[in-house]
């Protein structure tokens, strides 16, 4: 636990020092949102309906850059090896990185969400506080398997290409649930389905946060 706290502190401190990176990433996500609207055309109704999909797709795309970057720092400097030999438990490394990735992705997600609301002129019909919960659960769902796969591909030259190939099919359930839940909050939840989608997200997170933590030790050993 102590090690986990230090790892998390370290990752967040480094990202805080390099906060321009997170800013760049948020800009990237916002650019994607703009591109989606250009691609669909000036049909405001269609844009409004599909806003949740654009939001999550841009967050997911931005996540791959974030994930590969985090491990590149560790592997290139030899810091990861130093940590393992210290010894720091692989679980502490994993959960520290995964939580840090989630926090950063959440920051990107919040920016993207605000831009989505303005850009596509959407007003949430349900309590907007749900949006925050969905963002937390959704980014958690991307960051756990994302951190595992980023660790798996960190030493490869083609890391940035392989990571999405492995990660995107995996997070299909997470994306489905997050997009559905978001559109229910934005468009109104007449049938009371929001709970079940949040539940799906929660289960997804629980499965991958535990499974990936166990497997990560094998990956970097």
């Amino acid at each position: 636990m102590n090690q986990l706290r230090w790892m998390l502190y370290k990752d967040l401190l480094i990202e805080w020092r390099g906060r321009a990176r997170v800013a760049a990433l948020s800009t990237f996500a916002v650019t994607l949102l703009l591109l989606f609207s250009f691609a669909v055309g000036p049909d405001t109704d269609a844009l409004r309906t599909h806003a949740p999909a654009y939001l999550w797709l841009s967050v997911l795309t931005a996540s791959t850059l974030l994930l590969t970057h985090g491990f590149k720092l560790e592997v290139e400097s030899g810091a990861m090896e130093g940590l393992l030999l210290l010894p720091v438990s692989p679980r502490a490394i994993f959960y520290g990185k995964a939580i840090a990735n989630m926090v950063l992705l959440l920051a990107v997600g919040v920016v993207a969400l605000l831009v989505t609301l303005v850009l596509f002129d959407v007003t949430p019909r349900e309590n907007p506080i749900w949006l925050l919960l969905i963002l937390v659960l959704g980014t958690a769902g991307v960051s756990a398997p994302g951190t595992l796969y980023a660790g798996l591909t960190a030493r490869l030259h083609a890391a940035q290409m392989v990571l999405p190939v492995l990660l995107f099919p995996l997070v299909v359930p997470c994306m489905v649930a997050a997009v559905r839940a978001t559109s229910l909050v934005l468009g109104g939840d007449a049938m009371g389905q929001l709970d079940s989608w949040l539940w799906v997200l929660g289960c997804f997170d629980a499965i991958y946060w535990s499974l990936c933590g166990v497997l990560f030790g094998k990956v970097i050993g």
Partner: protein
Amino acid sequence: MPAAAIEARDVGRRYGRRWALARLDLIVPEGSFFLLVGANGSGKTTFLRLAASAEQRNRGELAVFGQDPARRAENLRAHVALLSHKAGLYEDLSARENLELLAGLASMEPRIAEWLAAVQLEDRPDPVRCFSAGMRKRLAFARLIAQRPRLALIDEPYGQLDPVGFDLVDGLMHTLRDQGATVVIASHLVERASRQADTALVLHQGTPRWQGPARKVPAAWAAVHRVPA
């Protein structure tokens, strides 16, 4: 418990189709100051990494304080420190923060000022990114000292340092040893290193060629390179 810090029998490690280290039989007694010399690619780094459990051997038996490093046991890793070519420092953090992190992760009492003073880096609050190569090396030494290892494995202790740094590092290594640690270094600076160590091993193209008292290393080194295997 045998009084050997490292015991190797017929140890070999290969990368693909090439043996980086082979036929190594070696005993490094606990508390000794051991020197590995050899040209580039002679297997020095490979041996240090095997002993540090950073890599796995492909053949033979290896024991560090009686334990097999291949098992990557935490209680062994906690006693062994490796200073490798890659400094393993976080570029965005300052020297102080890097050491704080180390102390926090290893649950040690953070005596940062003392560690920084030992490598003469007290007055550098800027991130490691701005450090010169020699300063990084010093900081890496501070990390090594902070770990208080029973076995210190040091790859090129003099690399990237200035003459002042040479003396500093010699002092640090002797301090480590006076504290009871076993020190194993690998170096190209044959003359200098052989004055520090007790015993030595000369490696040539992955195989051991000569083993004996460190003061005879310069002669052995010359002999190895005059007489091809």
